[in-house]
């Protein structure tokens, strides 16, 4: 993991002092609400329904255990004892007081963490595949490139006041896009060309919110040395020509759509001709040095499926199910990637208590080289667990409520804080998640349903990416009453589909029934081996619609 150099630390310390001064000026009345708003947003501080929300950056989802323990400490000392893992691999605190934020930022800086550019109209935290560096199915480890982008985008003098927020995601995976790159403002997919050279496919203009769109390919192969000059050209075109008259039309996707991807790509290329082969060239030596910050941990030479694991599988059915659902193949023999489920029934998805954070840190120290990763599905990953330790780890995860074997199942719901916490929300989302999880409490049935994603957002801002859930649920407000719109067929992966709305929205009390009807129709219609998404793609919307509305009428 990248370790801060002296100047990285100095920057953070200065940033904390600067923000402390800005906060004091605000309290003294020298900064108006509006002026302070933009400054605090650039430091991750929103004002929410009950209290401010502080979003802490977790660059590309990576944390060491010292950082996890610091987050636990902050949750305990400044919040109500819990934190929330966001869908951009960040960590949020829901109850800090505005006066305490400079102190919290100071605490974070002491472990090389911050809230810089976690909100506001600037370049946000770069996200990536949570299995980066440990999956066998990738071209190269994308994290060195993420760190290069992090440094380039941090306090970039030209791009602090963009028309709207700007999100970049990177993946190098060949099997599955776990970073949903085509739903980011810029999505970078690392590929290898026919000559065996590494480069980037550049997608631009993806996003969710009110106008869900999949990003378009504007550069089929960008050499690594050109990464920053090309990004700078893209941002400059957006900064100059993106709409600023209407915040709902200000994302880059609207500009790309208005110009067409071809014309937008041409404009970027024109700008890039001036910038390439200049100061922003990324020398190979720098890329190599950055790779040096992401060394492989000290793996032992081990065999796959060692006797302790084989025995445990034979003897314990629940363990076997967990192993199948919540762990993934590792690139090194004898190791496994373990996902800790943070969405067991009756707890808000993504929420984690201070004590749980401490436990996670202890487990990571014991079993996974002291590193932890956040996922955009709001779970936590221990990426380097020895297979011979899996059974021990599983028992401890059970004790602490992380072993719900629901990863990629209908119960692994992605859900925003919704109307219970968020000032933007039109409707509650957490009770809907709870309702659905309670409906699908028979795990034999849950596993029979198989791989599926279900996302619930409390408003059009789509923080839970309901458009790209195989089943998406959106809370809407109609004359003060909350209703829920259901969409089907969303796909976050490389094929990148936005789900289609099934029809008129439903009452709060009917959502679980509707989901159940949809699932039953899939079960009745599927052909052996099909996932929900495959069945939906084969048979289409019509018969789902018929079932759902017949039943409701």
């Amino acid at each position, binding site marked *: 993991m990248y370790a801060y150099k002296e100047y990285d630390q100095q920057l953070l310390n200065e940033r904390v002092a*600067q923000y402390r001064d800005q906060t004091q000026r605000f309290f003294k009345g020298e900064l108006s609400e509006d*002026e302070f708003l933009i400054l605090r947003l650039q430091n991750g501080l929103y004002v929410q329904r009950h209290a401010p929300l502080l979003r802490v950056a977790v660059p590309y989802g990576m944390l060491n255990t010292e950082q996890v323990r610091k987050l636990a400490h902050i949750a305990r000392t400044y919040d109500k004892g819990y934190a929330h893992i966001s869908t951009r691999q960040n960590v949020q605190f829901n109850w800090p007081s505005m006066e305490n934020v400079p102190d919290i930022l100071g605490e974070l800086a002491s472990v090389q963490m911050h809230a810089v550019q976690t909100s506001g109209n600037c370049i946000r935290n770069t996200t990536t595949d949570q299995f980066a560096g440990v999956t066998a199915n990738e071209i190269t480890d994308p994290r060195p490139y993420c760190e290069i982008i992090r*440094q380039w985008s941090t306090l970039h003098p030209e791009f602090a006041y963009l028309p709207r927020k700007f999100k970049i995601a990177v993946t190098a995976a060949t099997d599955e896009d776990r970073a949903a790159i085509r739903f980011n403002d810029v999505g970078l997919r690392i590929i290898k060309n026919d000559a065996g050279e590494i480069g980037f496919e550049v997608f631009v203009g993806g996003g969710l919110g009110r106008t869900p769109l999949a990003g378009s390919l504007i550069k089929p192969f960008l050499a690594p040395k050109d990464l920053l000059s090309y990004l700078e050209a893209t941002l*400059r075109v957006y900064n100059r020509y993106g709409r600023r008259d209407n915040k709902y039309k200000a994302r880059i996707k609207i500009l790309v759509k208005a110009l067409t991807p071809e014309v937008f790509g041409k404009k970027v290329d024109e700008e890039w001709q001036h910038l390439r082969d200049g100061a922003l060239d990324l020398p190979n030596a720098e890329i190599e040095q950055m790779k040096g910050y992401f060394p492989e941990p000290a793996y032992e030479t081990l065999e796959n499926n060692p006797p302790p694991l084989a025995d445990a599988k034979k003897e314990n059915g629940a363990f076997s199910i967990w192993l199948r659902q919540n762990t993934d193949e590792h690139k090194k023999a004898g190791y496994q990637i373990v996902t800790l489920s943070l969405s067991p029934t009756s707890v808000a998805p993504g929420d984690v208590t201070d004590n749980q954070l401490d436990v996670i840190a202890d487990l990571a120290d014991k079993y996974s080289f002291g590193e932890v990763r956040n996922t955009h599905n709001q779970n936590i990953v221990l990426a380097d667990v020895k297979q011979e330790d899996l059974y021990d780890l599983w028992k401890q995860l059970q004790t602490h409520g992380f072993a719900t074997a629901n990863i990629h199942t209908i119960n692994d719901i992605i859900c925003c804080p919704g109307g219970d916490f968020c000032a933007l929300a039109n409707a509650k989302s957490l009770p809907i998640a709870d309702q659905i999880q309670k409906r699908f409490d028979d795990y034999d049935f849950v596993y029979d349903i198989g791989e599926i994603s279900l996302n619930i957002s409390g408003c059009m801002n789509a923080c839970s990416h309901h458009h790209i859930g195989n089943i998406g649920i959106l809370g809407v407000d109609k004359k003060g009453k909350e209703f829920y719109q259901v969409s089907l067929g969303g796909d976050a992966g490389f094929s990148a589909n936005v789900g289609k709305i099934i029809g008129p929205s439903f009452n709060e009390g009917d959502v679980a029934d509707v989901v159940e009807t949809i699932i039953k129709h899939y079960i009745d219609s599927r052909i052996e081996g099909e996932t929900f998404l495959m069945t939906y793609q084969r048979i289409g919307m019509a018969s789902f619609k018929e079932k759902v509305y017949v039943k409701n009428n």
Partner: protein
Amino acid sequence: MSKIIKNREIIEDQWVSIDNPEQDLASTDASANIIVELAYWLENKTSLIERTGKVGVLLLGSDEPELFHQELNNIDLIAINFPKFGDGRGYSIARLLCERYDYQQEIRAVGDVLRDQLRFMERCGFNAYALRSDRNMEEALASFSAISVDYQSDVAEKKPIYNRRP
């Protein structure tokens, strides 16, 4: 005469903004240094250049340096307007003027200009700032040095941090 910040010092402003040239230019001393909007300058450049006083232009966020850069030798100052401090187009315009078109005169930020933006503006090529009139300029000077670490290359520092390392 009002004051501005230039090259990190507070000085008397030597320029007069002419908001409505058709009406006000006649009554302005010919030796005064004036700032007029780009569109007016382009239409009247011959007569403007002939004045004894210097002439600068005011750019809006939508103005494109690509379209008038051939004229830069005749322009003694460029003011870039920030209608709201959250409107960041001026940063890109200043960089283009400095880095692409090598403009060496004063580039001044005007409009909703607040101290928390000064350092970013400076890094993009601004060297003068007409702070909003309700703001304390002495205090604002401190914000130039609030952050001393810059990862990126900029107008003054030609190398990004990874090329500066020994």
